[in-house]
C-alpha cells in the first residue's frame, strides 16, 4: 500500500541563507514536476513552492527510496551543491502527519503571517500544475481537494484570517483603521531589519505600492527596495520624506531618538494635517513618545502593538483551537477514506477473478451447446452473473466493514490468500481512477459494472 509523504522546509526550519536560495528558486519557471518520470519510486507528486517554503507531497511504495529521490530533486531545484548539508532543515511527515501538515498549510496556520490568504491560491496553482504534468492520481487528487475545503472551513468557522495575530499584522490593522484604504498611501521604512521587512510585506499585501527605504547602509536599503519595488532615500534625508509619507516604520539601531517632537510639529502644516502613522519597532525607541500628542499623528511602539495583540489573545487561542479541531476532524475523515481505499483493490480483484472464471466457463458451455438461441444465452449470462454477485456479496460487505478498522491490513491479506489473488492478480494495481469527491463506497460499486 502506498504511503503519503510530505517533505519540505519552511521559514521555521530553514535559516535565512537557505531561504534566500528558495526565494531565487521560487522565481524560476522550471517546475520539478518534470522530473517525475525519472523518479522511479514516486507514484504521485505535488510540488508547492513559495518564497518561504518548498514542499514535496508525494506517494510512494518504498518510503526510503522515495524520500531519497525527492531529496535529490529538491537539491537540484534550489541549486544546492551536494556538499551543503540539507537534512537538518527538512521535515518529513508520513501519512496522517503529512495530511495534517498539508491541511495546516492550506488553512494558513503554518504561514509566516498566520492567516494570510495567499497560500491557498499558491496551493491551488501547485495542484493545477500537478494535473498538467499528470502527476496526481486518486490519493493526492482527493487529498488536495480536501485541503481546499478544509481551508475554506477554517476560514469561515474561525477568524484566523481576520484577527490580529502578529505585531506587524496589528500595525497594518491599525493603519487600516486610520487610513481605510492603504492602496494610495506612501510607506517609509527607516532601517531595514527583519521586522521592517515583515511589516513591509504586510503593507504590500494590503496593496501599498509606494514605498521608500532609508537605511544607514545603502546596500541593504537597495536590496530591500529591490524586493519590494521601492525607492531609496539617503538616511539623512528621511525627515524631508515625512512631508509626503503617510506611514513610517522605524527600526533602526540608534541609541537616541531619531525623530523628535519638533521635527513633526513643524511639518504638520506643510502636510496639510494629513494623518501620519508611526510604527516604532526599534528597541530602544526611535521616536519621541510625545509625537503622539500632536493632532493627526499616531505613534505606536512595540509595546503598544504587543498590547493590541494581547487584547485578543484569548480569542485567538480559542480560534486556533477551533481551527486545530477542524483539521484533526478532517484528518481523521481522510484516514478513514484512505483505509477504505486500500480495501478497494482487494474487492476489485475478487470481483475480477470471479468474472474471469465466469466468462471462461460460459465460453466453454456455449461451445458445447451450439443450438442455444440468443434469448437462452442471455438468460444464462444473467443467471451466472447473479450467482456470482450474490455469492460475493457477503465477503465484499465483510471487507468493506473491516476497511474501517486499524487491523484492516490483516483482513485484506487474509482475503487475498483466501481467494488466491496474489499470483498474477494485476487488479491490485488498478485502483479506481478519478472521481475526486465520490465516496469510497460508491467507488467500490462503480469500479466494476
Amino acid at each position, binding site marked *: 500500500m502506498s504511503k503519503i509523504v510530505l517533505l519540505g522546509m519552511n521559514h521555521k526550519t530553514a535559516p535565512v541563507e537557505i531561504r534566500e536560495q528558495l526565494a531565487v528558486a521560487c522565481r524560476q519557471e522550471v517546475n520539478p514536476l518534470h522530473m517525475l518520470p525519472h523518479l522511479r519510486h514516486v507514484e504521485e507528486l505535488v510540488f508547492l513552492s513559495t518564497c518561504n517554503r518548498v514542499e514535496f507531497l508525494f506517494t510512494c511504495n518504498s518510503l526510503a527510496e522515495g524520500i531519497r529521490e525527492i531529496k535529490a530533486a529538491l537539491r537540484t531545484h534550489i541549486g544546492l551543491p551536494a556538499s551543503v548539508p540539507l537534512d537538518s532543515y527538512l521535515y518529513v511527515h508520513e501519512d496522517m502527519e503529512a495530511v495534517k501538515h498539508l491541511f495546516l498549510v492550506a488553512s494558513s496556520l503554518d504561514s509566516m503571517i498566520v492567516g494570510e490568504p495567499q497560500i491557498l491560491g499558491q496551493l491551488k496553482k501547485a495542484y493545477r500544475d500537478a494535473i498538467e504534468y499528470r502527476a496526481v492520481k486518486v490519493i493526492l487528487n482527493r487529498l488536495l481537494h480536501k485541503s481546499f475545503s478544509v481551508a475554506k472551513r477554517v476560514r469561515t468557522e474561525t477568524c484566523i484570517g481576520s484577527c490580529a495575530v502578529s505585531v506587524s499584522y496589528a500595525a497594518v490593522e491599525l493603519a487600516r483603521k486610520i487610513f*481605510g*484604504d492603504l492602496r494610495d498611501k506612501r510607506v517609509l521604512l527607516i532601517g531595514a531589519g527583519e521586522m521592517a521587512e515583515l511589516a513591509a510585506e504586510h503593507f504590500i499585501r494590503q496593496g501599498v505600492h509606494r514605498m521608500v527605504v532609508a537605511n544607514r547602509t545603502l546596500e541593504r536599503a537597495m536590496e530591500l527596495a529591490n524586493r519590494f519595488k521601492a525607492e531609496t532615500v539617503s538616511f539623512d534625508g528621511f525627515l524631508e520624506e515625512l512631508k509626503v509619507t503617510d506611514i513610517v516604520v522605524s527600526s533602526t539601531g540608534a541609541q537616541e531618538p531619531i525623530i523628535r517632537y519638533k521635527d513633526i510639529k513643524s511639518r504638520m*502644516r506643510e502636510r496639510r*494635517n*494629513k494623518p501620519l502613522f508611526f510604527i516604532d519597532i526599534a528597541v530602544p525607541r526611535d521616536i519621541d513618545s510625545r509625537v503622539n500628542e500632536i493632532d*493627526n499623528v499616531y505613534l505606536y511602539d512595540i509595546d503598544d502593538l504587543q498590547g493590541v495583540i494581547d487584547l485578543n489573545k484569548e480569542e485567538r487561542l480559542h480560534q486556533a483551537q477551533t481551527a486545530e479541531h477542524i483539521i484533526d476532524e478532517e484528518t481523521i475523515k481522510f484516514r478513514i477514506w484512505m483505509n477504505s481505499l486500500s480495501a478497494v483493490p482487494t474487492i476489485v480483484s475478487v470481483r475480477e477473478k470471479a468474472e474471469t472464471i465466469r466468462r471462461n466457463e460460459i465460453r466453454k458451455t456455449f461451445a458445447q451447446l451450439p443450438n442455444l438461441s440468443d434469448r437462452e444465452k442471455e438468460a444464462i449470462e444473467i443467471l451466472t452473473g447473479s450467482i456470482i454477485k450474490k455469492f460475493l456479496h457477503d465477503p465484499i460487505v465483510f471487507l468493506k466493514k473491516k476497511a474501517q478498522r486499524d487491523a484492516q491490513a490483516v483482513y485484506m491479506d487474509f482475503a487475498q490468500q483466501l481467494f488466491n489473488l496474489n499470483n498474477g492478480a494485476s487488479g491490485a494495481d488498478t485502483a479506481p481512477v478519478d472521481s475526486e469527491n465520490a465516496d469510497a463506497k460508491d467507488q467500490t460499486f462503480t469500479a466494476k459494472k
Partner: protein
Amino acid sequence: MESLFLVIATLCYLSATAGYLVYLFRDREQLHRISWTVMLVGALFHGAAVLMRAVSVGRLPVTTIQEALSLFALVFVVTYLILQLRLQLRILGSFVSPLAVIFMLSSSFLPSNVMPKSEFFKSGWVIIHVGSLFVANALFALAFSVGIMYLLQERHIKKKNFGFLYERLPSLERLDSIAHYCLMSGFPLMTAGLITGFAYAAIVWHSPWNWDPKEILSVVTWIIYAVLVHERLAVGWRGRRAAWLSILGFSAVLLTFFGASLLLSGHHSVVSGKM
C-alpha cells in the same frame, strides 16, 4: 389621519433605532437592512402626514415649532436614507437614528401655538428659504453624528485603549471624508438659505436685517461653518479639531432653532405671537 400617520412614523423610527442599537453590538447585515427599510416606511408615513398638513393649511407647515421640527426630522431622515445608499456605511444608522427619534419626539412635546396667519408664508421664497436651510441643517446633523463617531474612534487609537466600538467603527479617514462631504454640500445650501431669507425680508419688510434674534444666531452659526470650511480648504484642517467644530456648529444650529423660536422674540418666534 394625519396624527395617526405621525404616530406610525414615530413608531417606525423608534423600532429602526432599536434595530440599529442592536446592530451596534451584533454585526448582522440583515439587521441593518430591516432597520433601514423600517425607517423608509416611517419616512413615507411622515411625508404623507406633512403633505396632508400642507394641503389643509395651504402653505409650508413650518409656522409652529412643532411643525417645523417635524418637517426637519423628515428632511433629516430622508437625507440619511439617501446618503446611506451612497455611502454604504451601515454603522452610521446607529448614530443617526437616535437623533431622528429625538427630533420626532421633541416635536410632539413642543408648544404648537400658531403664528398669526400671515400672507408672508405663502411665498415661494419661503419654500426655498426653509427648504435649503433644512437640508443644510440635516447635512450638518449628519456631520455632527459623524464627528462624534470620529472622536470616539480617534480616542480609541490615540489612547491605545480599544473598546468594542473600535472594531465596528470605520477608519478615521473615511469618517473625516464623510464629514467633509456633508459640510461642503451643506454650507452652500445654508448660504443660499440665508440669502433668500434676507432677500425676502428686504421685500416684505423693506429691510434685510431686522435684528431678529434668529437672524443674529443664524449669522453666528454661518460664521462658525464658514471658519470650518475655510480652515478645511485653505489649511487642511481635519480630524479632531474639525470634528469638534462641526459639533459646535450643530449646537449653534440647535440653539438657533430652539432658542430663537422659544425664548427670544422676533419675527421667527412662535411664542410671542408677534409676526
